[in-house]
């Protein structure tokens, strides 16, 4: 594993991910997630749907597949406008910091063609720039899909951070092979409700 990938997946990378909860804030508000067991179930569901899709696309972007085509395919897999907006905001912020940390023609080209790519596209192209393999890029995207919501749950519910990390450690990372389209109706519902919520700690 290259050191660049460790930096890329570190939650301290100043790319704005800390402001997103991946539906967790709304799930907590609606009582769907209220303890460690319901958190684990939420994260497992998120990993095998949104996480698997993100992993597949990050690995393809890392492998050099046309990012514009991948971005349009991700739009087709993201019915919720609130989720598209959150994905593009995080993609734009990641691309902005990546261009400053790892200046490269590949990132300049991506920014020229897609100023606000879906996050897995920005992650995949950056992963290739730092020398990671497509498989590692996929794992990084899956990791991103669950660590943000898990950390948000610690803050929202006051859960034991060590216990939450034990949950993360036992989740099965999906194989990034192929391009899945797994959808999660409740995540759509939560994202749309959250965007309309007047008081919120997280952007998504």
């Amino acid at each position: 594993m290259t050191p660049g990938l460790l930096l890329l997946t570190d939650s301290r990378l100043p790319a704005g991910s800390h402001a997103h909860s991946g539906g967790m804030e709304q799930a907590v508000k609606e009582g769907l997630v209220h303890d460690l067991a319901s958190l684990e179930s939420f994260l497992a569901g998120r990993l095998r749907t949104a996480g698997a899709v993100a992993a597949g696309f990050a690995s393809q972007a890392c492998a050099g597949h046309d990012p514009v085509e991948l971005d349009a395919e991700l739009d087709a897999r993201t019915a919720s406008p609130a989720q598209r907006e959150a994905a593009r905001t995080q993609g734009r912020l990641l691309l902005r910091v990546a261009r400053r940390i790892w200046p490269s023609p590949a990132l300049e080209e991506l920014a020229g063609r897609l100023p606000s790519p879906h996050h897995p596209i920005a992650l995949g192209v950056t992963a290739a720039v730092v020398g990671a393999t497509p498989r590692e890029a996929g794992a990084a995207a899956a990791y991103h899909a669950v660590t943000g919501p898990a950390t948000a749950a610690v803050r929202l519910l006051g859960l034991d951070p060590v216990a939450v990390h034990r949950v993360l450690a036992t989740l099965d990372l999906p194989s990034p092979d192929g391009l899945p389209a797994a959808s999660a109706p409740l995540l759509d519902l939560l994202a749309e409700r959250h965007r309309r919520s007047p008081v919120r700690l997280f952007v998504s």
Partner: protein
Amino acid sequence: MSLAAVAARRAMRARAEIATTLSAGRTALTVLRSSPPLTLRQTGPVTVHLVSTAAGPLGGDELELDLRVAPGTTLEVGSIASTLVLPGEGPSSMTVTAHVGAGASLRFAPEPTVLADGCDHRMAVRLSLDGDARVWWREEVVMGRYGEAGGRCVTRFDATAGGRPLLRQELELGTGPCSPAVLGGARCVGSVLTTRPCDTAVADGAVADGAVADGAVADGVVVMPLAGPGTLVQALAADAVELRERLDWGLAQVPPS
């Protein structure tokens, strides 16, 4: 059909098809080919209903329905009753392929698919829309008959508009523990995809500024303007009646195209 008859019948492969042509400015149903257990009945000038002439699908059945809606024509497809998917020898599948030509219109509104205990089903939809084609497409799945938990089902929906991806979704039901990220405790899930002509498509940035294009959300139902030229209404519910009510509420929020 009696239970004994269900148990006795063998796995079936069937491919039914409907095609329209434009004849003197009007729609003509020129192909209407039934293939048991998929039996088609014309019930109106442009309307066809699916009538089941055998139980199922049963495990092992592989059923296909092809719809070809010629440019400038209209087709409406419904079903007489809900579809009950039963277990049998191996997995069952139902694949619907539809091509809607330029300026044509397709309404696909079958009754729900009910997944009986023990079934292992695969539902696939492949929908391709040419420029300014219109579609109204409903899909409803109910986990189990009354008192049942329901079997397994994987649904895959692929729609393209003008050669570009419009909506791709895959949903696994009954394959793992309920997650509060996916279905929660809901027993029924459904959606309606409606499209508007491609030339009225607007970029996401423009959508965010418009109140109408922002969609809507209520208990168990969400109206989502897609990035491409369409809107998806998606609902979760405790039973089929509530599911239909929620989808209808969502459809009432979609501006007419």
